[in-house]
Structures are given as C-alpha cells and as structure tokens.
C-alpha cells in the first residue's frame, strides 16, 4: 500500500508504532499531488514548506513520547473557504485572490492544537455557490473516477483530493449539500454536522443561517475522529451551541439492531436514475438484514425546498457579500475615480457570473415591494419543511435517501442553465433548511463506473446514530475501499 492511500486511523497507528514518519507520508502525498493534480486540479494552493515544518515538529513530538493528540502528524486538505493565518484564502474568487487572513478559523485552531498538518487549500465553487466546482476563478476540478465528469460541489476540491489520494483527510463546508453531494460524486464520506455543532468563526460566510463546516474523509471512522476535534462551543461564534460533545468514535459499532429507518417517499420519485434508486434500495435492504427496520414516511413539503433554499440562501448571500467593496481587503479595480464607480467596477470584475446571479436574486428578494412575497414567504415555508422533519423523527431514528437524483453529470452540462443546476440539489438542501445532521457514504457504482452516494439524516445533535448506521454499512460492504484508476 502506498503511504498516500492511508486513512487517518491507519496513519495514527503507524505513526505511533514508529512504522512511518509524518515527514515520509507528507512527502509521499506531495509526490502524489505532483503526479495527478495537473489532471484533477483539486488544490488552489499548496503549503508545502509549512506542512513539512509541521511534519518535522510532529515527528519530534512522537519521538519524545508522552501525550500524543489524535491528529499529530496527519496531513489534511482544507477547503479554501476557511482561514488559515498567513495562508492565502481565496474562496475560489478573484475578489479574494490576494487575501491573506491574519487569523485562524476556530476549526483550524482546533486542528492545529491536535497536531494536524495542512497540505494546502482545495478548490471550490466561487463563494461555495455551485454544485460542480465549475465556477471557481482558479479553474475546474475533475472527478478522479472520470475526468469528463464533475466532482460535485462546492467542496469538489476536497472530495477529489480524497478520491485521488492527494490527502489523508479533509474539511469542507455545506450550505445546501456542498459536503455531501461532492462526497457522493467522488465515492468518499462527508458529514454535515447539526447547525450549531461546529463554530463557523473564520469560515467565509455565504448564507449564515445554513452554513456548516464538516469532515470529508476516506471512511466513517475518520469522520468520527475529525468530528471529535472540530465540534464544540466557541465564544467567537454565538450560533455554536453549548451542548455536550460526545466521543463520536464510541458510536462506531457494527450493530443496527432495533434502529428504525424512515424512507421518505418524496425522495424516490419518477425521473430518478434507476441505478441510484437500486443502489440506495439495496443499501436499505442490507441494513434490514442486519437488524434495522424500515418504513415509508412522508416529507410533504419536499417539493418546495429548492425554491425556499435559493431564495433564503441568495438573500443572505447578497447581504454577506456586500462587504466585498474593494476598500479594506481583496481585489480593487485600478480604474476608479469616484467611490461609487470603484464599488461597482470592483464587484463587476471581482465576482463571477454565478455569484452575481445570486447577489441579484437575493437583492431582488429583499428589495422593497418584494420582501413579503419572496423572502418572508420562504422563511415561512422553511418552518413547514422543518416541521416535516420533526414529525418524521418522532417515528424514526434516521432517514435514508439518495444524495442526488443522478450519478455525477458531465463537465459543462448544466453551466448555461442555472435552474437545472439548482434542481440537482433537491435531495441535500432540506437538511440545511431544517438544521439537522446528515452523512453521505458511498453505496454503489453506475455502469459507467461513477460513484453513487446515499445520505443518512438524523435528529438535531444526534450525529452518533448516523455514524453508527454508516459504520455498520461500511463494515458490511466494500464500496469505500474501491479506488479510481486515474487516466493520466
């Protein structure tokens, strides 16, 4: 086995036993990146020097012995939406292409305190607005399973880096599916924790009532390990809740006896790719054979989720992105003689088409005369969607649904049709609207050899049951062990 193929938990053991050094593994990963990233383009920037310094430091600490934090010497990829002190953080946008944050995001601070190593910043849709990683100012990312297909988005860089073994673990962010959908497209694991579970301080804001940071990993055990480190209250983010953080690795039990799975009928509709439907149905049958029970339930307002989400997310984005005005940081146009002209030109040149489209949509929904009809209406429908989940979880422990209606689509296929692109998010966005946690795990492959993912959704702050089911499924299947043959 090549060193770059390791998972976090495998590398933990090998580092502790002295079988390998962190420097060896880090160097092996950079060689791997050198070999494959010209084609995949998972990274926007690499932090080789810093990473090797961190690795040497980790090796020294391991040698010294004593208390070894869980991530000591483990190389991770970080989505370029998260601030690392002194490291360029672009959010996939020209407008932040020269931004060097003077501070660490809270999750980064926690990872550092636990010994993690940062390999670089991964590609993403500009400002995390997209489902395909095609809107990045720094170019597209390709799916390691098929270079003609999208890796999903917006955390497509982190997902592709995992699938192509260009990192050991990764972080992403999820506003409407941006961790789960790319994880599904690339055959890896991705979890959106409960809203309030992880501090967003230092995450470049997109839609603040929906954004959440989460782990993206090669298997479920690694997700639990990262959840242990990044979760918990932070005074710098008043939406991070003061709730108990369990040891998530204790939830990893190969046992689903007595657990009740709900299958929302609205997620298995006509027009869905039969390969996706079959894979997810087979997965549910396997869990039943292992002792879980399942029954059909209804989430009656599912059909309204896309409209609700795109109104609310765009409205919040139009407000959050007002800060990019060329005054205090980021790109500023050279061509400006009065302040209004400077604002408008900076934003015209600094933002890409999709970001502008969402700013326009959000500004419209918030503008005088339309606020009640669009923004307030969407907030009310959000209540109905959330109530659907509350009711469903009275009779079920988790819900299992596909990740997306189809396997990953072709690069370019939906770029000129924003509505079609938005509709592809149908199965992931309700989770953000209702704030619940959900994981995406691999559950099959299409005839073309593209990964298919399924989601397990749980109650607020019940990531443990989700992890238990995901772990059991993983122990009884081998989808997570398959590797793409990257055509170079």
């Amino acid at each position: 086995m090549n060193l770059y193929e390791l998972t976090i938990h495998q590398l933990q053991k090998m580092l502790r036993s002295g079988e390998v050094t962190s420097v060896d593994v880090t160097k092996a990963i950079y060689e791997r990146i050198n070999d494959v990233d010209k084609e995949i383009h998972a990274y926007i920037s690499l932090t080789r020097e810093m990473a090797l310094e961190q690795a040497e430091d980790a090796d020294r600490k391991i040698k010294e012995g004593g208390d070894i934090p869980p991530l000591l010497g483990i190389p991770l990829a970080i989505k370029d939406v998260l601030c690392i002190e002194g490291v360029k953080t672009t959010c996939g946008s020209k407008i932040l292409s020269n931004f060097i944050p003077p501070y660490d995001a809270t999750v980064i601070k926690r990872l550092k305190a636990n010994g993690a190593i940062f390999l670089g910043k991964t590609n993403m849709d500009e400002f995390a607005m997209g489902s395909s990683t095609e809107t990045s100012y720094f170019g597209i990312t390709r799916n390691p399973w098929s270079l003609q297909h999208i890796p999903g988005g917006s955390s497509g860089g982190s997902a592709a880096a995992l699938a192509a073994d260009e990192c050991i673990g990764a972080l992403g962010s999820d506003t409407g599916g941006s961790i789960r959908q790319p994880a599904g497209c690339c055959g890896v694991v991705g979890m959106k924790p409960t809203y309030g579970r992880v501090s967003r301080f230092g995450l470049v804001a997109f839609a603040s009532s929906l954004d959440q940071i989460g782990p993206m990993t090669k298997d479920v055990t690694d997700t639990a390990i990262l959840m242990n480190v990044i979760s918990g209250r932070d005074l710098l983010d008043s939406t991070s809740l003061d709730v108990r953080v369990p040891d998530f690795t204790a939830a990893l039990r190969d046992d689903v006896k007595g657990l009740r799975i709900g299958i929302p009928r609205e997620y298995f509709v006509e027009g869905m790719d039969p390969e996706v439907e079959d894979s997810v149905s087979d997965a549910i049958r396997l869990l039943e054979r292992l002792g879980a029970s399942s029954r059909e339930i209804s989430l009656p307002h599912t059909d309204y989720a896309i409209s609700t989400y795109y109104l609310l997310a765009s409205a919040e984005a139009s407000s959050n992105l007002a800060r990019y005005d060329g005054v205090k940081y980021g790109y500023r146009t050279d061509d400006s003689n009065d302040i209004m002209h400077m604002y408008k030109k900076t934003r015209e040149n600094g933002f890409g088409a999709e970001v502008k489209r969402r700013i326009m949509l959000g500004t419209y929904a918030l503008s005088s005369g339309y606020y009640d009809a669009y923004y307030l209406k969407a907030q009310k429908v959000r209540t109905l969607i959330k109530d659907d989940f509350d009711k469903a979880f009275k009779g079920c422990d988790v819900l299992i649904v596909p990740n997306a209606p189809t396997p990953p689509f072709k690069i370019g296929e939906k770029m000129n049709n924003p509505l079609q692109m938005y509709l592809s998010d149908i199965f992931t966005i309700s989770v953000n609207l209702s704030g619940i946690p959900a994981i995406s795990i691999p559950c099959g492959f299409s005839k073309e050899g593209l990964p298919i993912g399924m989601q397990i959704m749980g109650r607020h702050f019940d990531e443990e049951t989700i992890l238990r089911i995901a772990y059991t499924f993983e122990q009884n299947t081998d989808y997570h062990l398959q590797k793409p043959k990257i055509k170079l």
Partner: protein
Amino acid sequence: MKISKEEVEHIAKLARLEIDEKEKERFAHQLSDVLNHMEKLDQLDTEYVEPTSHILPIHNVFKGDEIKEVFPMADPLSNAPQKDHGHYRVPKIVE
C-alpha cells in the same frame, strides 16, 4: 414573473454591480426563469405560519462585559488595496 431589463438595472444598482448590456439580457431571462419556478411557493397557505430565520433554540447571546484576550489583533491594514498614513485610501467621496 417576468423580470425586465429595467428591473435588472435597478437591482444591479442596489447591489452595486456594474453590468454590461449583454449580461442584462441574460440576467433578465435567467432570473425570470428562476423566479417562475419559485412561484410554486404561492401554492402554500402560510397565513398562520411563523417564519424561521434560523433553527436554533436561542435568541440573543450575550457575553459578560469583561476584557479578554480572545482574538489576536493583527495589522488591520495588512490586506488593504491602498493605504496612506495608517488609513485606508479610497477615491474622493465628497466634492
């Protein structure tokens, strides 16, 4: 809902975005498409439904008025596109 070119110009002005003629046409068309789809929400009677702005059971989160070292203060001008004598420099604002 059909969005006109004039409405696109108005929204762009509110959003402080410069948009060229070709983009105006394209945005008018694409935004109309998206808003048409969103009209689906009108099918629902929400007269007696409370709006949800976020899902947490918290409202205001207050902190004690205590001096704490929570966040290292870096040079706030370190990322400034233009600076002058410890200030941000921008084009002339008042005549």
